[in-house]
């Protein structure tokens, strides 16, 4: 820490303490601050100070006291972010929301949960399940990411194909603006059209517009049963046709995950069942709902694909369901064995464009001589694209960067988007102008300007800053 900063920080912490912060909520020691400067992108920067507020009011206090000194604020949830959203700069304060982790209310009549932002997604799901209720969004990180982070990134998961993403469940918010004032938006009403829909604006704003301190979440009745099946097809296009056929036949899966042939090869040996050699694409399909409806839909699925698919396995119980999911679960560690490093992008395209994307990526892989492994959410068009490489080889690293440029170009050409789930943060901001026109970005900047005129709230995210480099 540079010397002139010290007196400033001492003064600030004295004021925080006078305003009710306990010393355990203020982290100043060098070594401890350093533990709040990274996220799952493995970038790291040490904030000047870390605060652990325990109420919305404490967030207000902290932001007001920081505003007096024009200090930057970086909101942080569980820091499981995959786009560097919570990475601070050295002259900024981290506000970590992990201690604001109370479930304030589960309103069973209106089926709405009111929570603080630090509640872990999976904890809410477990709690509401006791009342026969269900909070569907299921990012793979649900057992450790926070609802605040989910809202800020508009997180989604495999169930998006039927249930949608986080945005579809946020009914209302309380949030602290950079001037320290709290705003409220939304309410418990299903129909609510008074004024601008600020709730929708804040969802997915990546901590750049306000610090979320309270969240109202819609709940739905818990499905009575779930049926899981695994289907193998000889090609990606055959699998895509199969998905279309499902919808046409009134089968409405809650999840359709796919594995491409590289993924299949990576896990094949470790699976508790055997896959035919000709299997090029595997679909993992889940159908949920009332027992009768699940039964009827599964029978239809069976009838439709018994002959067309190379393989169709239906899980009969929890144990078999878990076995089928091993194919998907073992994937990440298994592909990690293919090369020392991977560049991982989470592009999304309209569902029908999946075969085209996969075919184009296949060509790209041949051209740059690096394996590209694809898997993800076939139901909603969200594809995890993994370029496998050895970054210690500068020549490979260069090819990797080039691959990313081309992956984005292909995606955008096919009507897709840079990120389906992880957000732009600081890792993809350099590409924003590839997707959006100057006028669109100017409109986005105007919103940012209106909320945060001094650019002190999570600066350096979403918008390309002069000299900002893509980070992989």
């Amino acid at each position, binding site marked *: 820490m540079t010397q002139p900063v010290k007196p400033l920080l001492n003064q600030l912490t004295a004021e925080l303490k006078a305003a009710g912060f306990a010393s355990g909520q203020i982290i100043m020691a*060098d070594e*401890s601050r350093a*533990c709040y400067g990274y*996220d799952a992108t493995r970038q790291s920067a040490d904030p000047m100070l870390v605060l*652990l507020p325990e109420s919305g009011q404490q967030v207000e206090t902290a932001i007001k006291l920081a505003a007096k000194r024009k200090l930057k604020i970086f909101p942080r949830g*569980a820091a*499981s972010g995959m786009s560097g959203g919570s990475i601070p700069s050295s002259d900024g304060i981290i506000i970590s929301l*992990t201690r604001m982790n109370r479930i304030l209310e589960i309103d069973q009549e209106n089926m709405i949960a009111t929570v603080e932002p630090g509640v872990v997604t999976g904890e809410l799901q477990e709690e509401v399940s006791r009342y026969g209720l269900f909070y569907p969004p299921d990012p793979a*990180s649900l057992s450790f990411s926070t609802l605040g982070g989910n809202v800020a990134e508009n997180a989604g998961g495999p169930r998006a194909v039927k249930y949608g993403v986080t945005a579809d469940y946020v009914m209302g918010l309380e949030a602290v603006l950079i001037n320290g004032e709290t705003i409220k938006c939304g309410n418990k009403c299903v129909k609510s059209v008074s004024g601008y829909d600020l709730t929708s604006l804040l969802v997915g704003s990546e901590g750049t517009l306000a610090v979320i301190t309270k969240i109202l979440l819609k709940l739905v009745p818990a499905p009575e049963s779930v049926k899981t099946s695994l289907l193998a097809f000889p090609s990606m296009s055959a699998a895509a046709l199969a998905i279309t056929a499902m919808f046409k036949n009134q089968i409405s899966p809650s999840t359709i995950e796919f594995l491409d042939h590289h993924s299949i090869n990576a896990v094949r040996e470790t699976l508790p069942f055997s896959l035919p050699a000709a299997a090029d694409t595997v679909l993992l399909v889940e159908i949920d709902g009332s027992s009768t409806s699940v039964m009827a839909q599964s029978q239809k699925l069976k009838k439709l694909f018994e002959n067309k698919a190379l393989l169709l396995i239906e899980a009969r119980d929890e144990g078999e369901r878990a076995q089928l999911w091993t194919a998907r679960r073992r994937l990440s560690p298994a592909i990690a064995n293919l090369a020392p490093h991977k560049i991982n992008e989470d592009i999304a395209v309209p569902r029908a464009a999946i075969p085209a994307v996969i075919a184009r990526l296949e060509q790209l892989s041949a051209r740059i001589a690096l394996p590209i492994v694809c898997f993800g959410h076939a139901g909603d068009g969200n594809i995890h694209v993994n370029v496998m490489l050895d970054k210690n080889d500068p020549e490979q690293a260069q090819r990797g960067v080039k691959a990313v440029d081309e992956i984005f170009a292909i995606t955008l050409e096919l009507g897709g988007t840079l990120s389906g789930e992880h957000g732009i943060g600081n890792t993809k901001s350099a590409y924003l102008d590839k997707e959006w026109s100057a006028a669109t970005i100017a409109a986005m900047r105007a919103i940012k300007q209106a909320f945060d005129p001094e650019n002190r709230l999570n600066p350096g995210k979403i918008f390309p800053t002069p000299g900002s480099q893509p980070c992989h």
Partner: protein
Amino acid sequence: MTLTWQQELKKCVKCGACMAVCPIYRQTGREEMVARGKLNLIERVDLEKPAHKKEIPAGWLEAIDSCLLCCSCEENCSKGVKITEIIAAARNRQSAKQGLNPIKKSAFALLLNRFFSMARLLKAGSFMQWLLWRRLPRHSGLVRRLPLPGIDDKTVIPALPRQQLDDYLRKRKAAPNLEPVLYFPGCATRYLYPQMGLDLIYVLEQLGFYGVVPPEFNCCGLVTWGAGDSKSTMELQQRNLAVIQKHAAIRQIVTGCASCGHALKEYDGLPADCEILDISEFLFRHKEKLEKLVGSRKLNRKITYHDPCHLRKGQKITAQPRWLLQLIAGENFVEMRHPERCCGAGGTFGLSHKALSRKILAEKTRDTDASGAEIVASGCPGCLLQLTEGALLAESSWEARHPVTVLADLLKNDAGKENRKEVE
């Protein structure tokens, strides 16, 4: 190939999955306390650097000290980072710099001292304990009579028995018709819970095995390893390995202590043909025989199960103890919510971090209460002591028992009733 701790450290990708399971993080909400944060501290604070020559930063000490070594993070880490190894190595470097905590130092010296041994000290204590401690009415264990520093009236310590396991075994008759297996009872069973050891030996006998308990077995070394005392750990390992070598004709070693089993399985230099088995693993190997022995007998009280961390996460054993309880109790065996969550004992952690340990325990106690069980079974003396304290704190009426003692009672008593006599 074994990696150095520095190489292990590099495997962490900072995904944060360890946050989902770390009991310390759950209670503190502080990043420095979770495995990811601890690893970051270990990476960032180079103890050899001149800046840290004089003192180790307080944040580092607090975080590295606040670990139960419960392996929960390791179970949930898709990168397979050996987090507890890294933490033990960090503690080792710390103690090399600062010296061991004096209490631990003298306790470890006792573990290694052949003449003035732990056994003798605890036996001496068994005569004096009634001055300071009184027996708990409904549970096994003692609580203080008079105010004592750092110990409140809800702290449960085990009653020190006058007769230790070895005393009972000295009177044992040889049984040439039984097949010998080595039994590693571990310190807690030997000196504190001899009945548990006798019950295990009894069950082995029923199955046709003779539990050989060499008196020269030492402490397994888990506690010295966790404290960062690698020298004592090596010494204890060598002594135990020598005992195993001496009994070259017996290649199976069973233990009823999850922590000892976890430690023994990690020994370097364990003979390749030697097998360490938790008692639940061993019993499962003799499934048919045991099923026949139990016959139609069933425990008529509701029983639930707590996974000892060193069994579930340390040794990946989850199914065998459940099979055993199912056999003992049938439908009276019920799962509690989150049986996998740590109870907060963590060796000496419960004493050094009492408040934090009790917060962790309180959740476990609530889950046990909610199961509606009268008995919570767990194959680890450390967990049993902690759970007993949990019942006392929450004024719950269930008792904590080793699955093998429940099994032994069932086998001894035709009606499945338990009118056992605690050994004094």
